[in-house]
């Protein structure tokens, strides 16, 4: 029996790859970490490789057992977490490396924009080395500071001071570089996107229609509580979660209306909580994996978090409303 090998290429507007996938050693499952069940692409890869596919959203999968993980990350968390752990990652959204962990993403471990048409079986002609390889965890970047040979007296003191100043300067310089990277990769693109939205809202008549729709929802306490319960509905919240994109868009829309005076400014505090009762719901099993939780804890923890939001969501709005008294 020849070994099954599947090749996955990036989509038309995707990035990275291509991947050559095969089961080896402990790596024997395909993981699908997408909000609504198993992704068809993950199913197809698993079928072609004749290995099981696991819904990583409801079950915990050890990273070292994954041949590949399929996600639908919008570009913040999941797309970077798995490359950092050394797992090949397919993102069905066509994104390029972004998010806080972008530096761990490269063409070897990340491939995006893939569809079921870009994955296909290839013949094992022996040209591909399918020997078992352990998933290697990307080594942390360590600033290895070789201890300089001890110098005595005045020159030694100068050398020590120089070293200390050097560390200090380099730390700040690197911090600056990371900060600029963050602004360029995540914040500026979102600002451009938000500005297009605001441009359309402010210039066209859509703003007035929107204001009328938003006012009963965000301009009254029952409306805000309703909004928070809606965002917390257990099968909706994982889909509203990714990248906090939807929450951020609603935040911008409400901000525009607050600025125009449609919504009273004191409602800004409860509104901040009302639009965010879904926070993290797309990320629960991954976060629990990062916390090194066991399988049964994940199986109990996911529903526990999803369902408690129905209570803690509106409670948060009520507390925020109480604290908004006397504000503005």
């Amino acid at each position, binding site marked *: 029996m020849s070994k099954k090998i599947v090749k996955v290429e990036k989509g038309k507007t995707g990035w990275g790859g291509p991947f050559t996938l095969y089961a080896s050693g402990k790596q024997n499952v395909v993981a699908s970490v997408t909000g609504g069940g198993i992704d068809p692409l993950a199913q197809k890869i698993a079928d072609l490789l004749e290995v099981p596919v696991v819904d990583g959203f409801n079950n915990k999968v050890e990273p070292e057992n994954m041949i590949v993980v399929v996600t639908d990350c919008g570009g913040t968390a999941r797309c970077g*977490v798995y490359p950092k752990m050394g797992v090949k990652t397919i993102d069905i959204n066509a994104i390029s490396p972004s*998010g*806080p962990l972008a530096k761990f993403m490269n063409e070897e471990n990340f491939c995006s924009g893939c569809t079921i048409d870009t994955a296909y079986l290839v013949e094992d002609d022996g040209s591909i080395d399918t020997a078992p390889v352990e998933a290697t965890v990307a080594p942390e970047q360590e600033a290895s500071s070789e201890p300089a040979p001890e110098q005595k007296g005045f020159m030694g003191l100068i050398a020590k001071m120089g070293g200390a100043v050097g560390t*200090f300067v380099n730390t*700040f310089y*690197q*911090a600056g570089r990371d*900060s600029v990277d*963050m*602004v360029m990769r995540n*914040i500026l693109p979102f*600002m*451009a996107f938000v*500005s297009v939205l605001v*441009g*359309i809202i402010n*210039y*066209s008549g859509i703003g007035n229609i929107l204001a009328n729709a938003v006012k009963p929802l965000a301009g009254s306490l029952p409306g805000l509580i309703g909004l928070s319960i809606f965002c917390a509905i257990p099968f909706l919240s994982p889909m509203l979660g990714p*990248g906090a994109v939807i*929450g*951020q*868009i609603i*935040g911008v829309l*409400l*901000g*525009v209306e*607050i*600025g125009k005076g449609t*919504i009273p*400014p004191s409602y*800004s*505090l409860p*509104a*901040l909580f009302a639009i*965010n009762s879904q*926070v*993290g*719901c797309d990320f*629960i099993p*991954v*976060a*629990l994996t*990062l*916390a*090194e939780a066991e399988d049964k*804890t994940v199986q109990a*923890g*996911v529903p*526990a*978090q999803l*369902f*408690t939001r129905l209570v*803690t969501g509106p*409670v*948060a709005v009520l507390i*925020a409303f109480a*604290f*908004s008294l006397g*504000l*503005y």
Partner: protein
Amino acid sequence: MNVVVGLAKGFTGIIGAGATNLTGLITGMIPNLLILLTLVNAIIALIGEDKVNAFAKKMTKFRITRYTILPFLALFFFTNPMCYTMGRFVEEEQKPGFIDATFRLAHPITGIFAHANAGEIFIWSGISSGIVKLGLDATPLAVRYLIVGLIVTFISGNVTEFVTKRILATSK
């Protein structure tokens, strides 16, 4: 012809309105954000992971610190998404509670410490830009956002811990 001119006018009008908004964001927000991110990132690097971890371990024992100070430390020092790795210090059945608590703080913290979740600051800055537009100071809102955030974090952590334990008990 007039229709075409009208359409073109509308198009350039939208572009202009968007560009004005973008200019405001870039000059008003990015310089502050860059200074904050650089300063806090440098402080985090100078303090070092080990010291934060050692301190965090002491915070896991008591309910009140586990669901307030611990998520705050995790977000402040390790930022979203690596903050969740701090969950390995808490007891197994408390992990979902800790994760939920940290989720709930991930945006309230950005009103003052934007670096903790800089990729998702528009939940906060979207709404606070409306306050600024009215000529009001957004700082009181940021402070209350964090205080209420910590209260909600505490409640969510406890409720989720309770429900997780109940589910684990019935599934045995």
